[in-house]
């Protein structure tokens, strides 16, 4: 069991690309890719807040706790 990032699902639901999100939240595409692929070790509250604001969602919509799918 671990923290899983559901950024892909939210991006699909909002019909937004990773590049567009990167521009909106002012985070580099590289860092956002690290987050999306689940390679990040930690996430700042400020980053999470910016993503939630851009995607108009709650932290729980982006993050989950469970078995990794792959």
């Amino acid at each position, binding site marked *: 069991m671990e923290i899983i990032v559901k950024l892909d699902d939210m991006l699909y639901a909002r019909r937004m690309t990773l590049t567009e999100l990167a521009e909106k939240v002012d985070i580099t595409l590289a860092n956002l890719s690290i987050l999306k692929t689940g390679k*990040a070790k930690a*996430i700042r509250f400020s980053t999470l807040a910016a993503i939630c604001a851009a995607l108009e969602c709650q932290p729980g919509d982006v993050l989950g706790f469970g078995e990794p799918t792959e």
Partner: protein
Amino acid sequence: MADKHHLFTITQWLLKAATIFCAFLSVVLGLAFIAVVLALGALLVAPSLLPIFSIPLSVEGVPLVTILAAALFLVAGGLIGTVLVLFAVRATHGIVDTAIAGDPFVGDNAERLKRIGWLLLGVMVVQFLSTTMVVAIAPDNNIAGHIEGGDGISLTGLLAVLLIFVLSRIFRHGSEMRADLEGTV
């Protein structure tokens, strides 16, 4: 930031000079060591040869063999000490290089600091042993006149070594924190 770089650049130059000096000193002491070993060997194997080259068997009442034996320990101690310092200087050079590159908080630097600590401790022990041996070989004459038995181990030196070991631990902790930060988005 520019000031910091000045400090690192000056240190880098000083370390380069120290490397050259230590390397030169190592060669000189290496040659001196070979010379002393050859002389001592010749003296022990064929002492009858000495009068032929008009070499006295004693100087100012001190037997030549005592002088050479004392010299052997002094030169050997100096040689080993210089080589250890050379390695310590090179390790310090490595740390300064990473600082100039902008990322000194790496695991390698913690290892380098630990190595420097052991090397400096080694220098003190070698100096202690060699001076103790010289005084033991020639206690009552001019050779040991300038040497205190047990030279080398000092409170400030030990404190410096201890500080370096503590800094090494702190560096390891810092590099772990740095690695953690790398994965933070």
